[in-house]
C-alpha cells in the first residue's frame, strides 16, 4: 500500500536538500533542484513498486536534478562568470583559469565534448560523485564511466591547448 506523498516529503525533505546542496555546493539554486526532485518523485509515486527503497530512489532523482541545474546554468553563456570555482572535492576543470575569459574557454570546451564524456566529467568533477553512482546515472559499468571521464579530460586538455595556441 502506498503512503500519502506528504509523508515522503516530511521524512526525506531535509535529506534531499542536503544532497542537492552537496552536489551544487551552494553555487546553483539548491531550492529549485529540491522542488524539481519532489515534483518528479510525486509524478512517479503511484507507480513506484511497493518494495522500492524510497530513500535511495530520492537520492538518485535529487542528484540528477541537481546536475540538471548545473547543466542549465552551464548552457547560459552570459552566466559563465557565476560558475562555481570549486567542486565539492576542490577541483574543477576550470580551476586553473586565471580570468573569466579563460574560464569561458574551458566551459566552451566542456560543452563541446561528446555527450557521454561531458556527462561523466560533469558528474565526476562538478558533482563529485563516485564512479559506481555515475554508472547508475549514465548506464554501463563504473569502469566505462571512469574511461568516459578520463577521455573527456584528455579531450579537454587537447582542445583547451589548441585554443590557447590557436
Amino acid at each position: 500500500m502506498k503512503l500519502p506523498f506528504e509523508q515522503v516529503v516530511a521524512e526525506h525533505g531535509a535529506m534531499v536538500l542536503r544532497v542537492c546542496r552537496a552536489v551544487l555546493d551552494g553555487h546553483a539554486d539548491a531550492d529549485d533542484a529540491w522542488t524539481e526532485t519532489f515534483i518528479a518523485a510525486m509524478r512517479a509515486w503511484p507507480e513506484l513498486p511497493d518494495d522500492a527503497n524510497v530513500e535511495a530512489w530520492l537520492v538518485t532523482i535529487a542528484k540528477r536534478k541537481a546536475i540538471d541545474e548545473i547543466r542549465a546554468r552551464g548552457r547560459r553563456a552570459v552566466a559563465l562568470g557565476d560558475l562555481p570555482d570549486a567542486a565539492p572535492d576542490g577541483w574543477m576543470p576550470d580551476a586553473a583559469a586565471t580570468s573569466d575569459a579563460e574560464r569561458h574557454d574551458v566551459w566552451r570546451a566542456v560543452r563541446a565534448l561528446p555527450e557521454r564524456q561531458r556527462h561523466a566529467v560533469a558528474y565526476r568533477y562538478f558533482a563529485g560523485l563516485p564512479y559506481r553512482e555515475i554508472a547508475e546515472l549514465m548506464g554501463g559499468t563504473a569502469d566505462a564511466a571512469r574511461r568516459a571521464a578520463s577521455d573527456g579530460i584528455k579531450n579537454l586538455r587537447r582542445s583547451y591547448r589548441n585554443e590557447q595556441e590557436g
Partner: protein
Amino acid sequence: MTTPESNTRSRPRDEVSDEPHRATDAAPQQLALLHARLADAADEQGLLDVAYRIIDTPVGPLLLAATERGLVRVAFEREGFDAVLAHLAERVSPRVLRAPSRLDDVARQLEEYFAGQRRAFDVRLDHALSSGFRALVQQHLPHIPYGHTESYKQVAAVLGNPGAVRAVGTACATNPLPVVVPCHRVLRTDGSLGGYIGGLEAKTALLQLEQAA
C-alpha cells in the same frame, strides 16, 4: 595560480573517500518554504490529487481534504489524521500533499459557520468516498435545514426505503464530510443523539450552535 598539470588538487579523491560533503542541516522554516513551493508547483502541474490542511475549530482540529473536483473529506481528530490520510492515499490517490490554499474557501466558510454567521455551505463536493445507498443518504442530508433535525427513520422514509433505518444510521456514521454535510442533524426517533463520527460531545456542540444562532 597553477596549471592543470601542476595542480596537485586536480586529481579526484579515491573511490573510498569519495563521499560528497555534508551541508549543514536545513532550518525548519526553509523546509516549510520549500514545501509551500512544492504544493504550488504540484497544483500547477496537475499532480495535486489530494490537497489537505488542518484547521482549529470549537469542536477541535478538523482535517479538510479536497481533490480537483471538490471537498472529499472532513475528519475529526479522534478518527486519527494519519489513518485518514492513509485511507485517502489508498482510496483516492497517494499523491496527497499538505496544500492549504485549495481549502481556503471551505476553511473560511467553516469559520463563519462556527461563528454563527453561516447557515449553509457553498462548496463543490467530491463524493468519491461514498457509493450506493450511503451516497444517497449523504446527498439528502444538506436538505435538512440549519437548526432542524430529522430522525433516522424519517430519512429512510424520505428516501423511499422506510425499512432502511439501520442503513441510514450506517450512512450517517460513515459520512466522509461531517459538519459540511450535516449528519449531526439526524437523531434517534426518541430524540436521543444516536452516534456521531466526531463524538457525541461534538454532535451536541453543533446542535447547540445551530439552536443558538
